[in-house]
Each structure stands twice: as structure tokens, then as C-alpha cells.
């Protein structure tokens, strides 16, 4: 069964498939949590406070008697949504900017690149903390804070990749045929650089999950009572010596999800963008 499955996906390594499985599991967990969680994550059960992992609560309960497994399930939502939207902002704004820079060259290109330099010059985390702190904590501002830093990543990548496409013969023939720069960018350049962008998006997704966790940890992410992995860790810190499960499981969730995304990204890179890192010969 597995062998047959492997045969149908010959270009993906076992590690990449495992990564895809982990990511899918977390996505599924987030979806299921919309309909069902083992326990309600908003009610308070004073009788079940600080319970160690048990049959009723496989990952234990926190100081309010809330079920850690249920909170991790709901927390996956915040993580996935914030990270995905942040990367979408980066891709949606950055890639067109990069394409535009590559197509127009000259002053416009300089302006775009200089702008990315400015954003790059900010230490990413400080920028995110600054935005979230200045405009108030919350999921939307976390998305913006993380997203802003993704724009120059995609702009640079798209520009660099697009520049090499522009030197190709088929672009030259398109130009001589009188196609506009916009049409060439959309019809020839974009399809050719899409694999690079997709690979990078996976990488950025895992970075965004880490960034979201960091922001939540310092209290600038999704606001309570909605649970988030980072804040669960922050809350657990005072209780770590007698309720270690509170610190271990949310951290493991972050780790596993990011790990899965990285494995998947690696696999995608080998499949879609073999030039950047070929397999050892």
C-alpha cells in the first residue's frame, strides 16, 4: 500500500512526505477544533486545576482547569491563520514588486530595492514587537507585523529570479513580437519563477509560525481567551516546576509544526527548484 503510494509520488522523499503529513495533521486539527474539541476551552473548571496528563485530559490541564490538548488544537488555528496571512501579504505584495523591478529596471528598480533594504535593516523581531506594541496587540497586527518583513524577501527573490528569465531567448522573441512588459511578466516570467516562490513561501511559513509564537509569548499575539501556543508557554513559566506538561506540550506543538513545514519545504525545493540544492551525487 505504502509502496504503491510511494511509486505514485516518486519525486518526493520519505522526509518530505512525513513533513506533508505533519502539516496536514495540524491543519486537520485546527479544522476539527472548529467543530469539536475534547473539552471546552473557555469554561473554567476549578476542580480540575493543574491536572497531570490523564485519560480525561491526555495532555493535562492548566491553572484554570482548561484542557491542554483542546487549547493546543484551537491554538493551531491562530498559528496557521496568522502565519498564512502574513506570508500571503509578503507574497502578494513582494512578488509583484519584484516582477515590476525586474521589468522596469532603472530608477524604479532602485527604489524598490532600496525600500527592501530599509525593511531588511530592521531587526525583524524588533520591528514586529514595535508594530504590535504601538498599534495594540492582536491577531491582525501580528499578521501585519510579520507580513511587512516578508515583503522584501519575496520582492528580492522575485526580482533576482525574474532578471534571469528576462535574459532568455523566448522573452526576447516575445519582446520583438511586441508584447508589453506587463504581459511578458505575467505570461512568461511569473510561471517560470513560481516554483522558486512556492518553495520560499513554505520556508517563510515556518518562520512566520515561529514569529507568531514569539509575539504571543510576549503577549502581542492573539488575545485571550482565545488560546495560542506562545501564550500557553508564557503562562506556564511560573508553574514549570510542578506542572511541566504546561511548558512541554505547547512547545512541542510549535516545534513539530515548524519541523513539518521545513521537511515539506525541503522536499518541495528538491522537486520544484532542483538548481538551488541538488541531491548529493
Amino acid at each position, binding site marked *: 500500500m505504502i509502496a504503491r503510494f510511494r511509486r505514485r509520488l516518486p519525486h518526493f522523499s520519505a522526509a518530505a512526505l512525513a513533513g506533508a503529513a505533519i502539516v496536514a495533521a495540524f491543519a486537520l486539527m485546527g479544522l476539527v477544533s472548529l467543530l469539536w474539541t475534547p473539552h471546552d476551552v473557555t469554561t473554567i473548571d476549578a476542580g480540575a486545576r493543574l491536572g497531570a496528563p490523564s485519560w480525561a485530559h491526555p495532555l493535562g490541564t492548566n491553572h484554570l482547569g482548561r484542557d491542554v490538548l483542546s487549547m493546543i488544537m484551537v491554538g493551531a488555528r491562530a498559528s496557521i491563520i496568522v502565519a498564512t496571512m502574513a506570508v500571503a501579504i509578503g507574497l502578494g505584495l513582494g512578488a509583484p514588486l519584484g516582477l515590476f523591478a525586474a521589468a522596469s529596471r532603472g530608477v524604479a528598480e532602485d527604489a524598490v530595492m532600496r525600500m527592501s533594504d530599509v525593511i531588511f535593516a530592521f531587526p525583524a523581531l524588533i520591528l514586529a514587537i514595535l508594530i504590535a506594541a504601538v498599534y495594540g496587540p492582536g491577531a491582525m497586527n501580528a499578521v501585519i507585523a510579520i507580513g511587512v518583513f516578508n515583503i522584501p524577501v519575496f520582492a528580492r527573490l522575485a526580482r533576482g529570479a525574474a532578471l534571469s528569465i528576462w535574459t532568455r531567448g523566448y522573452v526576447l522573441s516575445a519582446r520583438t513580437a511586441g508584447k508589453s512588459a506587463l504581459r511578458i511578466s505575467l505570461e512568461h516570467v511569473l510561471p517560470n519563477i513560481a516554483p522558486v516562490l512556492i518553495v520560499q513561501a513554505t520556508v517563510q511559513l515556518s518562520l512566520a509560525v515561529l514569529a507568531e509564537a514569539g509575539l504571543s509569548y510576549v503577549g502581542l499575539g492573539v488575545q485571550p481567551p482565545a488560546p495560542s501556543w506562545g501564550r500557553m508557554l508564557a503562562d506556564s513559566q511560573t508553574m514549570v516546576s510542578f506542572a511541566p506538561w504546561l511548558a512541554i506540550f505547547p512547545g512541542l506543538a510549535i516545534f513539530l509544526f515548524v519541523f513539518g513545514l*521545513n521537511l515539506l519545504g525541503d522536499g518541495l525545493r528538491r522537486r520544484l527548484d532542483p538548481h538551488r540544492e541538488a541531491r548529493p551525487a
Partner: protein
Amino acid sequence: MSAATKAGVMLRLLFISLIAAFLPAKLHAAGALNVGVQLEPPNLDPTSGAAAAIDEIVYANLFEGLTRINEDGSVAPLLAASWTVSDDGLIYEFTLRRGVRFHDGTNFDAGDVVFSLNRARAPGSTNAQRVIFELIDDVVATGDHTVRIRLKEPLGAFPTYLGWGDAVIVAAESAATNAVNPVGTGPFKFQRWRKGASVTLNRNDDYWGARPALDQVNFIFIPDPSAAFAALMAGDVDGFPNYPAPENLALIERDARFRIVTGTGEGEMLLAINHARAPFDDIRVRRALNHAIDKRAVIEAGLFGYGAPIGSHFPPHHPAYVELADRYPYDPAEARRLLAAAGYADSLDVTLTLPPPAYARRGGEVIAAQLEAIGVNVAIRNMEWAQWLDQVFANKAYDLTIVSHTEPLDIDIYARDDYYFQYANDAFDAVIADLRGAADPARRDALFKQAQEILADDAVNVFIASGPKIAVWSKDVAGVWANAPLQANDFTRADIAGRAPLPAESAGAPAALPIWAVFIAIAGAFAFVIFYSKASPAFLAGRALSMAATLAAASLVIFMLIEVAPGDPAAFMMGLNADPAALAALKAELGLDQPLPMRYLDWVGGMLMGDFGTSYTYRTPVAELMAERLWVSLPLAIVAFAISTAIGLPAGLAAASLARKPAGRAIFGAAQAGVAIPNFWLAILFVMFFAVTLRWFSAGGFPGWHVGLAPGLKALLLPAFALALPQAAILTQIMRSAAMETLREDYIRTARAKGLTRKQTVRNHAMRNALIPVLTILGLQFSFLLAGGVIIENVFYLPGLGRLIFQAITQRDLIVVESVVMALVFVVIMISFLIDLAYALVDPRLRQQRSAS
């Protein structure tokens, strides 16, 4: 000597100093008491602001007033040996103590009293209790050591007010500098303030009264409850007068090293209600809220059971206390009925604004759940203190909020016009007016009782609990206050068993190295790289120009981003009950009344001249603050950098050259796992394992470089590893792929073909060439480590730049945020410039390309 061997020598030196760090460190100075406190004060002048954190350090220890408040709340003479009151209660005659000297050697006399009280009530005064001092008609020195004070109206509690921190006696000569170098008459004198870390007081050997037993008191700032617990376990502090993490108390109770001292506190925890907003002007709605909340459940979750339910704004230990806790018993059905009667059955949306303390955040979740249960939709908004003070306290833009009022006997706040509850009741105001003039204790008690009942009847707020003052002390500590009649920690009578007296302080701690040393180092690095890179002048000029443009753009972005932020730094600095006139005076002093473009130009112009402005909260130059913090952040980044490089580069090379062997795959797998670990999680696990369980390291804190290199490095080791390991994993991956790429090059095959071993090939050919792409990452890494310490510095409460930014953001100390972020951006841009040049250094091909173009 090749670059590689140089790096090797550096690494070895670093390794030796790391080993030295394991030598036993003596953290405690003998005869010194280390006290953990939650908040760092904005300054050390108790007459300039309401911040409780100031009094917690200086009251009774450093500054003294005419009278003082004892542990039981009673008033006793202090700098006034005695006093008399006229029959109409308007004229007070004080006889002052003789032979009292300020810490700077000047004598204390009637002139200082006149100066201090006049300063407090002057029109431009920033004293937080100016309203009370304005009731003074005049103050006259009737002799060297006698003073007569005339009041505008009788004020029964006047001697008590004189015992507050706001009324301490200061000298005219030193009043202006008390914020940073306080000079008082108390049993301890100011020694040093390490911003973000601690304040040290030394015994005053010239004290007029009984000399304290302690040689030294160190107040160590630990804002984070978990860090507080860790510091206690690690023995970094001898105790906390106010222990911030009640959830750990059960554990501490079982630990033979500590004792828990519970005393009565003055704090009333409230669910405050905004009466000016519908529907909260309807008493049925307010009563419904009161019935909806199970105070005991809130106490259990928010205060971990440490608190007693109350029913009005009054502490239970006071003789005039009326038991009203069950005036509105927990009854969700009744609450629903009242809401329906008011016309809000199942259709009420409210916001619940929560300040940062754990009681508010945790209690807030419980209250939200209880309100949801009666059909109220609650949206929780978490805020930093500065935002809370601005939006809730100053602008009254809130529905409900949770806060603890800790000022003693402050029931009169409900009579204030325009206070943030927006409560107005003439009958209540009349009671408070009577109370002002009443000196007779029995009459005062009767009025207090009446006031409590009115507040309960009107269901003004949901009065939840009176929290006890919970202190945790090492068993060795004796003579500390159990009760807290005011926000103060008197260590005059404190002692520690089994600690030798402190040797005479050596010439003082070496001052932090000046910030220009850093700039010289950077300039040196530049000169070196530029000289060796042989880059063309045109190339250099071009890069320098674009660097300047980037810096200018960045400065504008930072300034705009921050200046439009909500929140008023002056309001935050002045504390909860500040008077508006005092606030305006402070704003003018800080230059906050200037227009935006002026402030921007001032800021940029100043930075060009090396002046980063003056911190709003610390009242010290920002450059000085940064220089201090830099000596924590920079070494932390360097150590982390060394660790991640020392692990990442060899691991990456090994993974590349053993790519098809199990060992290579194992390294690769470990690196892939490593990049996925959030560094703060790793930090928590490290604290859990190395500090709490094994006790090899202290859980955090930084002793300062003046105690020696080894203890300093030791304190940085755990945070550096937590910061470095995920980075090392990234580096391993990059090194591996770079090396694998070079290993496929033709010249490698040639080298192998001519008979070199695989090892020789890797060392002599592959590594050098693979280093080129790795260089970029190394540069980025250093910037990341320098800035990325923000969170790690918070987990380990290291007083570094990251924490400086964080504290400044919460204190709305805009100029500090701007300048530190700008400095970090500057470093990042410099490093990327250096790397650009360094490319040319390692790769002659690039050099040729550039001079050709």
C-alpha cells in the same frame, strides 16, 4: 597567520574564559540583603511622582518625613520630635529633631521643612498629592528647629499625610537631582542604580538614630512572575516583600529554605465600571454584574486563593470595616432577571480591559466566563500599563476593567470629579467632605462606615477582594515588615543571620565602558576591511551614500511609527492619582508640547552629535542607558555567536563530507530539528533543567562585570546557549549545502584525482570556498543575535538592550525606543556594509569585477 588559524586562537581564548565561568561565583556580598521587587521605579524622587515603586525603595530607608507610618498603620514622630495642634485644628507647631544630617553632610533644619512643603504645593509642582499640600495656607520657620504650619481648613489626618512618601523632607541643594542621586536623612544612603537591574543602598554610618544591622540592601528588579520564582529558587534574592507568583506558594511552603509571611494589604481588587457609559448608568445592570460574579472563583484563579472577598472599597483589617461581601450574593439567575428588567436580556456586548498583572489577566478570564454565563458578550482587551493609564484612567474609554487600588484609605477617590469610574453621588461627596475635617477617631470611623455602605448600595463597582501582602523570605532574614500600611519596605530593623559584615566598599564599581569604545572598535573594523579589500574609492563612495540614504529612511520610519502611538508618557510617569496641573508641568519639562517635525529634527540632529536624548522615565541620557545595556547585550551576542559558529561550521562541514553516511545524516537531521525549536522554549527548558532541578546555574539575572569576568560570563552562558543552538542549526544547514556545492566543483575532483585525501580536500579547498556564502549568514546572524536577545533577555531577566526596548515600550519612553531601535538598525546596516566589503576580501574575483565596473 591565516584567517582560519586566527579564528582558531580566538575560539580557544573564548573556550578558556568559558571554563573560567564555571569556577564558583560569589553572588552575595556579605552583610547585604538582596530584595526582589517587581517594578523598577521611573526615578528615585518620591516627591515627584506617584509610582509606588519609588516608595518601595526609598521610603524610611533613604528619605524621612516629619512623621512616619508604622507597620501597624499608626503615626509616629520622625524628623519632628513632637508637635501640637491648635483647638480649631488649623495650626500645627512642629519641634524638629536636632543633630540630623543629610547624606551629603549638610545639616537638617527648619529651612528644609519650609522648602520641602512649599515645593510640594507650588503651582508648577509635580508632586502627585499636590491636592493635599494645597490645603496648607503657609509654612513658617519660627526658629532653627521649630516650624509652624497653618492649614486652610481642618484636616484630621494631616500628621498621617506628612508620613507619606510624598511628604519627605529634601534639601534645597539636592532636590533637583534626587531623581537620579537621592539625598535624604535616612539610615541608608544611595550607592548605585544599575538601570534595568538593581538599586543599591548602603548603611549611613552617620545616621542620627539607631544604626541598621544591614551593611547593604540591593533591590533587584524582576518584573516577570516566573523569573521571580526562578530567582528565589536559585538563591539570587533573599526574598520578595510582595511575591508576584502566588501559584508557586504551595511549593515554596514545602521548601525548608523559605518562609511565607502573610500580612494585611491595602489593595482592593475591583471590577471597575464606567458609569458614564450606557447601560452602566443603570443600577440594575451594575447589580446584575455584582450578582453574576463568583468572587471566590475569581480569588481562586486570579490570586490563587490568597485574598478575602469584600463588598466595598475598604480593607478588612481596618477597625471601621463593614462586612458587605455578601451584599450581592453570587446568583446568576438573579443577575439574568435584573438584566432582563433593564432591557438587556441576551443582548449586551461589553469590553473588558485588562492591565498586565497576573491577577487582572487571570481574574479577567474567569470574570469573562462568568459574565458570558448570564448572557453578556465580553470582548477582552489586554493592555500595557501605559495604554491602560492613557485610555482607561485618563480618557475613560472603557466599559469594564480589573485593577487593584493599593493606596491606603483611598475611599475618597469616589468623591473626585472626573475620576475614571465617573461616579457621582452628592450624599457620598458630603460624607467625604465631613471626613476631611474630622479629627476624632470615633467620628472618622462612623463616616468611613457610612461611605462604604453608600458605595455598596450603589453597586458602584464589583468589589472583589482584598489581597493580603504576601512576602517570601529566606529563613535567615529577620526584622522585615509583615503588613503593608503603605507601599514601603522598611529595612531599618532587618537582619540576616550568618552573614559576615561587608568589607569597606572598594573605590566603587568601575563605570561602564563609554559607548565611544564601541564606535572606535567599529571604525577599526572598517579601516581594516577597507584597507585589505582594496575596493575602489568609487565603489566605497557609492556604498556609503546608499547606506546613508537607508539610515535616513529608517530613522523617518521609526519616528513616524512611534510618535503616532497612543499613550502619554507623562501620564504614565505620574502614576494613577496624578493631578492634571502637575501633568502639564511635566509635559513642558519633557518637551512633549513641541510640534512633531521639531521633535524629529531635534532627535536626528542630536544623534548626529552623539546625543541620543534624555530618557523620559529614567531622566538620564539615553546614550548612557544604552552603553550600560550594551555591555550585557554585546557580550551575550558575542558568546552566542561564538557558540553557534563553533557548532554550526564544523557540523555543517562534517554533514557535507559525510553526506551519505549515517553520521552525516544524523547531523543533518539534528540540524533540521534544531531550526524548528523556538529559542524561548529552549530557554524555559534550560531554566527548568539546569537552574531549578540541577541548580548548576542561576535562573537568570546579571551580577554586573564589576564582580568579575567569570560570574558575568557564567550568567550569560545559559541564555547564550538558548539563543545560539537554533542559530547553530541554521548555520549547519547553510554550511552543509555550501560545502556540498563546492564539493561538486571540478577543482575538488582534480584535488582528489591528484591523490589528496577526502579530509585534506575538505580542509584545504572546500572550506575556504564554501565560506563565501556563509559569510552573509554570519553577518546576518550577529545582527539577529544582538536584537534577537529581546525575548531571551526577558526570560533570564538580563539587563540588556532588548529588555531596555521592552521596558521602554511599556513605559512609553518613546525617546529610548526610538534611539535603541535606531542604534540596532545602524549596527545591522554597518554589518551588511562590512560584509559587502569582506566579500571582496575573501574572493579576489569579486574585487576585480568591482574595480572594473
